[in-house]
Each structure stands twice: as C-alpha cells, then as structure tokens.
C-alpha cells in the first residue's frame, strides 16, 4: 500500500505543481473540418476512479490529452487547482500512454529519471525507484534495458514510473488496448491498488467489460461531447442517453 501523497509537496520537499481539481470548460477542437471535441465541460475531482468511455474516434483520448495540456484546445480553457497550467514545475500528474514510451535506459533508470525531473534529491531517488519497482512487481527486471521488456512489462513499468512521483492524479489512455488478458489483469490490479492508495484515476477505454470492472464513475463520450456522466451503477443499469444505452447493449452506433 502506498502512502497517501501529501497534497502540498508530494512529500519531496520541493513543491510540485498541484493539479486537482482539473476543470475543462467549453473545450473544442476541430481538425480538417471535423469536429473532434464539441464544447466539453468536465471536472476531475479528488477521489473517484473515473472511466472515460465511448466508441473509437469519439474523442476520449484527445480529451485526456487536452486535460493534461499535451494538446491545446481551439476554444475553451483548462485549469489545474484553479489556476492556468504553466511549465514552471513538474505537475503532480501521471500519464500513461496506449503505447508506452520507454526511455533508452534500464527499467530502474526510467523510474529514476521521472524522480529526478520531479526534483527528488539524488540520495532518495535510488531508494524510491527500487521501492516503486517492488510495488509494481518488476524488481527482478530493474537492470534490464526497458525496451527489451514485453509489452505488458513495459506498460507496468510506465505505470510504476508515473506513480513513483506520487501524483495526485493518474491519467491512462487505453493502457491495455494492445495487451493480452493476463497482462490486462495485471495492469488493472496495479491501477486499482494505486487508487486504493489514494491516487485519483482517470482511465480511458472503449472496453465495456473493463469499464464495469474498474469504474466508480463513468463519463460517456460520443461525437465529441460528454453524452452522459454519473456513478457506474446508474450508468450501466439505467443509462439516460440513447447513445449510452445502445453502446452498453452492443448495438452499433451511427
């Protein structure tokens, strides 16, 4: 079990950028005449494990990137903890991509790198990186070049790396889309453990079963909008929108 992160300092002494709550207001993006995000309002508050769900191309991944300020919106604003995100400090935010980006170095050095960027003192980095690998069940691979790990191991390492800096929130963009069931299970366990440890989680997936297994809250994205948002129970048992109902029942959506 990971210690709950100190919201002010990330327990590192040096202040990292606070992130929660993340607010997106009126987010719109157009590319080549197509509307990808169409005036999305969304808030990520501390606590729940939120699954952003929807069919392929609905705009889920793009929305996640906009919230992480990786992609600037054409219209609308994103705020972190009530202020405009800047590039001055490392944010207390972890992001896991569908295809894990492994730096060309060993597994443990990948984790050390993230800790260094977050301002963790050198003396502490080795210990924290080793602990993080133990937690993620990857300690026997610590010295292996990250890029020779299997797909599942790479994704687990990416999550370990994202969590090592004790972020307030962990954003995951379809992290299991390319993985087999056993690797998927390992990832889901890892994410659930992190959430129990106090990390707020936003998980993007188009896999209905995965959403059922993980979600406290669901945000259903369709045609670049949030068609429906609410507790997982209500969403799966009594969806209020026609689009969500069709998606849950496995009908094809226009």
């Amino acid at each position: 079990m990971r210690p709950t992160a100190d919201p002010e300092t990330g327990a590192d002494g040096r202040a990292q950028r606070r992130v929660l709550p993340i607010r997106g207001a009126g987010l719109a993006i157009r590319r080549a005449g197509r509307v990808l995000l169409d005036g999305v309002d969304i808030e990520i508050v501390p606590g729940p494990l939120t699954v952003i769900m929807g069919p392929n191309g609905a705009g889920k991944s793009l929305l996640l990137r906009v919230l992480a300020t990786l992609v600037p919106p054409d219209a609308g604003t994103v705020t972190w903890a009530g202020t405009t995100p800047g590039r001055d400090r490392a944010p207390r935010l972890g992001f896991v991509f569908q295809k894990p980006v492994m730096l060309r170095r060993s597994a443990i050095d990948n984790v050390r790198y993230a800790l260094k960027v977050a301002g963790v003192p050198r003396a502490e980095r080795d210990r924290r990186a080793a602990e993080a690998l133990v937690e993620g069940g990857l300690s026997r691979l610590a010295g292996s070049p990250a890029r020779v790990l299997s797909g599942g191991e790479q994704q687990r390492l990416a999550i370990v790396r994202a969590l090592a800096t004790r972020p307030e929130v962990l954003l995951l963009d379809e992290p299991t889309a390319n993985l087999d069931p056993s690797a998927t299970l390992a990832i889901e366990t890892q994410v659930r453990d992190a959430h129990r440890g106090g990390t707020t989680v936003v998980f993007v997936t188009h896999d209905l079963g995965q959403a059922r297994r993980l979600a406290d809250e669901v945000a259903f994205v369709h045609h670049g909008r949030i068609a429906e948002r609410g507790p997982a129970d209500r969403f799966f048992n009594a969806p209020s929108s026609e689009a969500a109902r069709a998606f849950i029942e496995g009908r094809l959506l226009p």
Partner: protein
Amino acid sequence: MQDFGAAFGEAFRLVASLDPDLVEIVGLSLRVSVSAVLAAALIGLPLGAALAVARFPGRGVAMVALNSLMGLPPVVVGLLIYLALSRAGPLGPLGLLYTPWAMILAQMVLVVPIIAAVTRQTVEDLKDEYEEQLRVLGVGTAGMVATLLWDARFSLLTALLAGFGRAIAEVGAVIIVGGNIDHVTRVMTTAIALETSKGDLALALGLGLILLALAIGVNAAVMTLRRTAGHAAYG
C-alpha cells in the same frame, strides 16, 4: 596503369617499415581531425538538438542554411580562416596561422554543419517518440534537449563519423591554413597533394590507401562500440 601495383607496394613498405615520417603524419592527422570533431560536437550536437526541439520563426531558413553549409567547399573555409588568422587579419596577434590549431579550427568549421544537421534529423525522430512523455513529466526545453541527446547518443556516433570522414579527407582548408609544413602541419591529405605535385603518384596513392585503411579502422571501431554498448543500453 603500373601505378596501382606500385601504390600497394609503397603502402605496404611504409606500413611495414613503420616509417617515422609516416607515423608522425598519421598521428598529426588523427589528432587534428579527432580534436576538430570533438570541438565541433560541442557546438553541433546542442545546436542540432535545439533546432529539432525548438519552434521559432525562421527555423526553416536556419535548416536550409545548415544543410547548405554542409556543402561548403573546404578551400573557401580555408580562405576565410586564413583571412581571420593572418597577421593582417583580426585574429592575427594570436599567431595561430600555420599551426595545428588553425587546422583544427578550419576542420571544425567544416564539420559543425554536418554534425548539427545529422543531429537535428536523429533527435527529431526520437523527439516524435519522446515528446509527450517528457512534457507530461514536466521536462522543460533544455532538459528535453539533454535527454534526447543522451538517449540518441549511440545513433549520434553516426553524426560524429560523418564529421570525421569530412575532416580527415579534406585537403583544401588545411593546406591553406596549415601550410603543409614538414614536421609541423603536414597531414595525410597535404602529404598526398605534395607527392602528387612531385609526380610521385605511387607514393601519393600509397598514402591514400593508408588513409582509407585508417578511415575504415575508425569506422569499424565506432560501429562495434555502437553495437555492443548500444545493445546494453537500448536492448
């Protein structure tokens, strides 16, 4: 041409006898060109990486300029350095003309554009892969340049090799700023030029063969390093 056979004979004789003049010339060639490449790397690597990472107005122009400078004739660089280092020039008081320092400077100017251009391409490819991950970790522009350079370091050996190839092979610049002075600034290429002008084509060609062997040796060594060390780090 009987010169080919004679050239191999000359090359073999020079190497087998470890001709002291040859050893001196080869040693100076390596010292000058390796120094020039290392100095050029100190400028070219960060410059190329910065061009790959930064987005600013005029970036396209800068890249065209860089790629064009790769084609700069050595003799033009030699003349510019000569004019700068001549006693009548702005840097004349330093007294660097006709010294190995002048040759290093000239070769460095020749090599910087090559290293910078190859670095830009290599780093830009890696940036496409890394950028979002690094940004989400909170890495700034300078940190991104450093990380990309470090992680691309074995690929960047290619940039250094390309630079070394140009430096060790060029004659136009070093013969002007070095003066081809025996035992002081005579390197492989200027010695080849001299023997050619003496009409001793076999000796000139023999020296050329040794130069070629030298280049092959350096390339093979670097490639081996890249493969073994690169595997350890990259997988």
